[in-house]
């Protein structure tokens, strides 16, 4: 069977800076893959390429066998790929619930101009999703009033609410304090665990990747320098140097 996500010879430069070169990878249905690498190693660029926000100079992206390279983010999202962002991308002017409801309306493909957004059935599901993320107390608050950590969770919740086949998370624990980061990840696993959603998450934090990914890819200056089970890969001093910049 074909992989859920497959990239073939994916290449992208920013001027002289190599963000990705001849990137070949496969992610199978149901996997939880961690991508690790130092800043500027091309992690986020990979997500931007995979979701169509950036276009590669060479190479192709295959989603469940068919080519999405030329598609814009919206189209790829509709094919069941959702992502979260390193810096939460939210609507500061709206309330937490409204934001989530919009995500649900989008999933249902019901962006009309007459039926109200705040429909009973959507509201119920919305609140329930918020509960999973422990955001339900904030439901009626404006996003602009949320603390950073909650924003991070909401950012991910919006993606999850789309019920994607493939979820891409950009540094879910970035900006979250060391104490809280496992808590955050546990919540996520709690939500995603049962769903069987294929997940790729980008991290620079070894412990997180070690603990939560089944398989890990190590990026360095746009190249995959190592791949395999977390324990084995992360033990490799080469990898440690690439990621941490020291042994």
């Amino acid at each position: 069977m074909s992989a859920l996500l497959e990239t073939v010879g994916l290449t992208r430069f920013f001027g002289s800076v190599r963000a990705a070169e001849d990137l070949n990878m496969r992610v199978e249905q149901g996997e939880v893959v961690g991508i690790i690498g130092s800043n500027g190693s091309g992690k986020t660029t990979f997500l931007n390429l995979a979701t169509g926000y950036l276009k590669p100079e060479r190479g192709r992206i295959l989603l469940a066998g068919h080519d999405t390279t030329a598609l814009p983010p919206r189209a790829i999202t509709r094919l069941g790929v959702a992502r979260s962002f390193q810096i939460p991308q939210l609507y500061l002017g709206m309330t937490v619930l409204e934001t989530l409801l919009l995500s649900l309306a989008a999933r249902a493909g019901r962006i009309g101009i007459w039926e109200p957004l705040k429909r009973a059935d959507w509201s119920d599901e919305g609140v329930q999703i918020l509960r999973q993320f422990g955001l339900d107390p904030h439901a009626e608050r404006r996003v602009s009033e949320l603390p950073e950590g909650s924003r991070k969770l909401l950012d991910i919740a919006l993606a999850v609410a789309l019920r994607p086949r493939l979820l891409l998370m950009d540094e879910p624990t970035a900006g979250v304090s060391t104490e809280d980061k496992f808590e955050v990840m546990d919540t996520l696993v709690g939500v995603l665990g049962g769903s069987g959603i294929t997940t790729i998450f980008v991290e620079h934090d070894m412990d997180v990747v070690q603990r939560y990914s089944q398989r890990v890819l190590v990026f360095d200056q746009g190249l995959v320098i190592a791949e395999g089970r977390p324990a084995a890969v992360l033990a490799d001093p080469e990898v440690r140097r690439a990621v941490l910049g020291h042994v």
Partner: protein
Amino acid sequence: MRLLLVVALDGLTYASWLFLVSAGLTFTYGVLRVLNLAHGNLYALGAYLGATLVLRYAATGSVPALAYGLLFLAAVVIGLVFGPLIERGFLRRVYSRDEEVQLLLTFSISLILEDVVKLVWGVNPIFADMPYSYLGRVRLGGVNYAWYPFLLTAIALAIGVLLWLVVTRTRLGKVLASVITDREVSLTLGINVPRVYTWAFTAGAVLAALGGALTAPMFSLAPGVGAEVLVTSFAVIAIGGLGSIGGAALGALIVGLARSAAVYFFPELDLFAIYLIMALVLLFRPQGFFGEIEVRRI
């Protein structure tokens, strides 16, 4: 053939006028990323003050040549008075707010200045053609031309080159560039961004007023000149790309030639030739010829 020469000459002189009146608008936008809707009114103020000075001066009957200096004087005075006033007094308070608020602000200022002109100079047309007629005329392609428009062409060129040199060759240019690309970083580099803004806006104001002052000898001035000029110069810089001096020059040239061609070959199109061109250009190149699109980092 001879006709084409005439068309080209008219187009060129009109283009230089267009460049003169739109350079300030595009420069201000380039640095502050604010489109100054009061641009046309600064133009009008420059024109009225220039005309008044010239008329007063002509009345004394002394050497006409100096009158041209007065036009520049008028521009500088208007620019130095209103530039800092508008930027420091009002604009500065809304940089943090949405772009449409900034537009509304300059819009309200333009409304106010519109009436300031009426209150100071009344509603009767003012015409100070002395600098225009004094230069006399020249016969080209069997047609009489006044020298003055060619003087404008020369000045337009000079200003264009000057701006280009400042932006590309001087330290000030580098400062501007860094302010444009990243305000915060520039601050950390110890650049006094607020002052840069004030001066950039003032420079834009002077250019606007200069456009007006140099026009005064050619046109008689009546209430409402400002609005027309704003729309025209926006069309010009939109074609060239907002914020680009070179773009303004290119846009002016295109519009200028197109208009004089329209006058000769499709007189009925004269009225909105300029807007049609703009619509076409933006249709195929949304950011104008020299404009660039910014992609947000996420």
